[in-house]
């Protein structure tokens, strides 16, 4: 409890912002975890066991998860807080998102552990960047200030750019890193330009002060405000790979090493959506709702349709999962579009269950990719049902969950989103979303058909070695997908309570 001591030493200095360290504990733990791992491994120079970085990462993520629970109870008692002079908003919304990020870090580390050993790549940098990316994500989720949100987004993005370019022996990994970098930089410039315009129109970059300013006075010439909203939306749409800003996603998912694509699909999307909800639904929701909702509606419908239709023509399973993740982004955009508390909790629940589903699916894809991470064609999955029935069954459950078959997390999350959409009056959007889900179901069936129905029993299938760590990750993902589908009560209850609130900073 050195943090407490340090805290009141600092607080004693008059006029300075008191930093309750415990409030940002998750981000601190993840960030320091990453940095210390970096130094520990580089100082001890390979005298540490090879599994040390993975264990360190997982324990850091689990520690962060524990602080999330503790803070959840504390927020329950004392209500939401705005801390460190308005930069961080501690409310159950951000805690839920941080929890989801910690889950994706644990699963990402497990997938990496098995993957790196098989590809005989080494170095702690993978895990360090994983932890620092998660730290960036947590700052983004809890950011109450647009600048802090932007920096968090940049930490997350840059770390993932490097991660996706780090597979030395694959040219496509380097290229996916470069392509992701160019699109990411382009998107950050747009997001930043949007922030600048909003700053011009409202006078502050703090979300709480922006919403109070917009509530108090109506801007007659709101050209700046509209421009700002449009540009910020473009920036977020890029990050979330919503159509028409999705061109980068399939190539980058295919090129990047599979555990990194998994982390990208789960964590980057979660953090980006958390940021988007915080900015649009919370800060700009009450006043500028009618301006940004039509744009989000267009993004949602396009993402749903293109995401599911384009996936049908793919033959590479990783590209298929990339397009299906664009479809999922469309679904979450539907929840964001309703811009109600129910919509937000629907989006949160969707993100958590999506993290489990996508991490599990990419875990299986990583394993079937065999040495060299190159075997991702549908034909590589032929006969998987026979040689590794357990793995094939797990992948079937993940795919059916993504299609929305009941008794899985996918069904309930889609159910939640449709309910929030209908509750805020756009039933047509709900129908479109479900039809897109049906189209996407055909994509998932194609993979199941490849695994079980194609290929005579006779022909031999290349052996697939499932490392222990990856099977643990797939186990966790399986448990998450099924438990969230069958016994979702505690999580749905938490998602309902995870409403966010912008607390104005004490001057």
């Amino acid at each position, binding site marked *: 409890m050195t943090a407490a001591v340090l805290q009141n030493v600092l607080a004693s200095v008059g006029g300075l912002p008191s930093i309750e360290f415990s409030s940002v504990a998750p981000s601190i733990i993840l960030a320091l975890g990453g940095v210390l791992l970096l130094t520990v491994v580089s100082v001890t120079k390979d005298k540490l066991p090879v599994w040390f970085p993975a264990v360190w990462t997982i324990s850091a993520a689990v520690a962060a998860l524990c602080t999330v629970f503790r803070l959840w109870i504390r927020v329950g008692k004392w209500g939401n807080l705005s801390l460190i002079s308005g930069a961080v908003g501690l409310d159950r919304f951000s805690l839920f998102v941080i929890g989801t990020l910690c889950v994706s870090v644990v699963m990402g580390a497990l997938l990496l552990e098995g993957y790196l050993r098989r590809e005989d790549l080494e170095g702690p940098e993978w895990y360090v960047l994983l932890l620092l990316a998660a730290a960036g994500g947590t700052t983004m989720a809890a950011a109450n200030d647009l600048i802090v949100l932007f920096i968090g987004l940049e930490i997350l993005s840059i770390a993932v750019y490097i991660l996706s370019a780090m597979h030395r022996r694959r040219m496509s990994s380097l290229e996916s890193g*470069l*392509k992701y970098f160019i699109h990411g930089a382009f998107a950050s410039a747009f997001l930043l330009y949007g922030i600048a315009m909003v700053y011009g129109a409202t006078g502050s970059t703090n979300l709480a002060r922006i919403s109070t300013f917009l509530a108090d006075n109506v801007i007659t010439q709101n050209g700046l405000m509209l421009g700002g909203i449009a540009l910020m939306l473009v920036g977020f749409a890029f990050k979330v790979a919503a159509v028409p800003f999705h061109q980068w996603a399939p190539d980058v998912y295919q090129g990047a090493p599979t555990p990194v694509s998994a982390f990208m699909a789960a964590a980057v999307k979660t953090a980006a959506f958390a940021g988007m909800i915080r900015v649009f639904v919370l800060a700009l929701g009450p006043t500028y709702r009618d301006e940004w909702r039509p744009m989000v509606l267009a993004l949602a419908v396009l993402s749903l349709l293109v995401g599911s239709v384009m996936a049908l023509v793919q033959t590479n399973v990783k590209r298929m999962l990339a397009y299906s993740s664009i479809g999922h982004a469309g679904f979450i955009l539907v929840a964001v579009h309703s811009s109600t508390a129910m919509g937000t909790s629907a989006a949160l629940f969707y993100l958590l269950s999506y993290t489990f589903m996508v991490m599990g699916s990419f875990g299986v894809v990583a394993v079937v990719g065999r040495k060299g991470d190159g075997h991702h064609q549908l034909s590589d999955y032929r006969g998987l049902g026979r040689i590794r029935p357990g793995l094939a069954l797990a992948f079937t459950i993940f795919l059916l969950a993504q299609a929305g078959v009941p008794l899985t997390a996918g069904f309930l999350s889609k159910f939640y989103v449709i309910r929030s959409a209908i509750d805020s009056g756009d039933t047509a959007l709900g129908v479109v979303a479900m039809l897109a889900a049906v189209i996407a179901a055909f994509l998932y069936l194609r993979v199941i058909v490849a695994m079980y129905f194609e290929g005579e029993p006779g022909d031999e299938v290349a052996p697939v070695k499932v490392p222990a760590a990856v099977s643990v990750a797939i186990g966790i993902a399986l448990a998450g997908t099924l438990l969230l589908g069958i016994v979702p009560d505690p999580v749905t209850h938490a998602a309902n309570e995870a409403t966010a609130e912008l607390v104005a900073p004490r001057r």
Partner: protein
Amino acid sequence: MFTLTETWYLVLAALIFSIGAVGLLVRRNVLVMFMCVELMLNAVNLTFVSFSTALDDLGGQTAVFFVLVVAAAEVVVGLGIIVAIMRRRQSADVDDISLMRG
């Protein structure tokens, strides 16, 4: 003559931003694309400073501070990736790079 309001600065910044965006979309050479990104970030800095002066508020200038840091980090990592690719191959054209066209 006209009085110099911040609108002039904003228009200039918008022009630079657009030129940067067009440059990034049109040019194939990766290095030039990076420079265009830097252009866009500079345009944003200019917008921040002109708003900061107009609103008589320090917020804009602190924002420029952090944008600079982010731009620097971005360039370092970007060029790191480019050099890694170039050592694997010679030409810097993006179309050679779009090896994985979908």
